[in-house]
């Protein structure tokens, strides 16, 4: 208006409008369908924020990366001049620095009960082999020519079905893909109840799915619970040093939970603390999806490859459980291996439901929670291995 005032209409592109629809869909799925609402609602709103032109919430470099924030002394000057936006600050100090995903993992540790894994340590094998999807998709993504080797590793880690390691690895190796990869990873975790059953059915017979397991696991002592996070951290840190930040925060959070003397800290870490970090993560991840970065062939490929990653991850855990059964007198239900893909607690619930459908006497939830937790540890180890190889 008179050369002094400008609305955003003139700067809108078709890409922005498509992104509004995607943001609307995510907010709808979060609110109306309750699909990962804690993440999808902030991600959806973050997408809206950065796709409204001239808003200045996140300023991008010509290559599509968030603009550099610079030093703290330059920060106030840069914000005032509109050279960077609020979300640039959150991205630089929260995601690029890896602080937010690591602190979220601390909170996750404080909420995690490892007793099913301690009671049945063979769960580690299922968690390990359920990482098959990560490496299969890495090969497909890289050889497709659509992704660089670092990007392919980050697409593969979606198969680990664990948010913080996915964000941590992608922020380090392929920050430009952080938006689509995080969105797809969290969306597919919510879709586990739809994705996994057909894969499990295709790979097992009804007789196998009906294998009965005694509902109770062995009792775990308090001392075992306390030793577990310390032992896992020390051994994993020695074997895969690059996994120390992830495993360290995860196990530290768990130690707060089980120590018996830091209940207040554990409640804080697993309560408001993780909630605040989660919405900051969601909002900032949403802000990494301007139309120019998100509406590409790479995003479509990530959506497709994530299904392949879940399928191979589920198959890896299942096949190992079948293999283990060859050596056991008292057979285990092979479906519990499928819960090794992590996606806590979705995949364990899927196994519980399918187990009861095949044999109403079966109660597999606690049996499946063991591989579920082991899968979370395994994904952190994989992230550390990939960082060690590619960084």
């Amino acid at each position, binding site marked *: 208006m008179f050369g002094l005032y400008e609305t955003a209409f003139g700067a809108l592109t078709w890409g922005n409008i498509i992104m509004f629809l995607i943001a609307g869909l995510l907010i709808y799925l979060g609110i109306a369908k309750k699909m990962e609402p804690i993440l999808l609602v902030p991600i959806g709103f973050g997408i809206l924020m950065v796709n409204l032109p001239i808003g200045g919430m996140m300023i991008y470099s010509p290559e599509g990366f968030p603009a550099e924030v610079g030093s703290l002394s330059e920060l106030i000057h840069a914000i005032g001049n509109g050279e960077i936006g609020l979300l640039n600050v959150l991205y630089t100090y929260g995601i690029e620095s890896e602080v937010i995903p690591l602190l979220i993992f601390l909170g996750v540790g404080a909420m995690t009960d490892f007793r099913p894994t301690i009671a049945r340590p063979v769960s580690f*094998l299922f968690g390990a082999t359920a990482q098959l999807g990560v*490496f299969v998709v890495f090969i497909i993504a890289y050889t497709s020519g659509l992704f660089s*080797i670092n990007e392919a590793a980050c697409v593969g880690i979606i198969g680990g079905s664990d948010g913080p390691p996915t964000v941590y690895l992608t922020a380090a190796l392929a920050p430009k893909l952080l938006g689509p990869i995080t969105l797809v990873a969290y969306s597919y975790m919510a879709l586990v109840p739809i994705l996994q059953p057909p894969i499990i059915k295709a790979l097992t017979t009804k007789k196998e799915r009906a294998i009965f397991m005694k509902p109770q696991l062995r009792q775990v*002592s308090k001392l075992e619970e306390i*030793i577990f996070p310390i*032992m896992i951290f020390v*051994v994993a840190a020695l074997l895969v040093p690059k996994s120390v930040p992830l495993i360290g925060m995860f196990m530290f959070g768990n130690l707060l939970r089980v120590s018996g003397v830091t209940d207040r800290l554990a409640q804080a870490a697993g309560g408001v603390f993780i909630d605040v970090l989660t919405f900051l993560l969601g909002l900032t991840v949403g802000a990494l999806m301007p139309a120019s970065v998100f509406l590409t062939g790479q995003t479509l490929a990530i959506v497709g490859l994530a299904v392949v990653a879940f399928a191979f991850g589920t198959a890896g855990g299942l096949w190992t459980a079948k293999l283990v059964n060859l050596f056991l007198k008292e057979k285990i239900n092979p479906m519990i291996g499928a819960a090794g893909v992590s996606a806590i607690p979705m995949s364990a619930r899927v196994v519980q439901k399918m187990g009861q459908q095949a044999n109403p006497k079966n109660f597999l939830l606690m049996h499946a929670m063991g591989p579920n937790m082991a899968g979370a540890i395994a994904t952190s180890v994989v992230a550390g291995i990939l960082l060690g190889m590619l960084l």
Partner: protein
Amino acid sequence: MIDWSLVAKIAGGGFGVTILALVILYVVAWIVGLIVPKPKAETKETPEKEK
């Protein structure tokens, strides 16, 4: 140009190290489970019969 040797190193080596690391964690967790005393199963106290 695809560097197949790098692909093999990362996919094969990476998956192999993952399995190895988790097998070691399995063995260590199993040994800890053997060493640490188990909680005693709760026994119901039966009241003494009145004479």
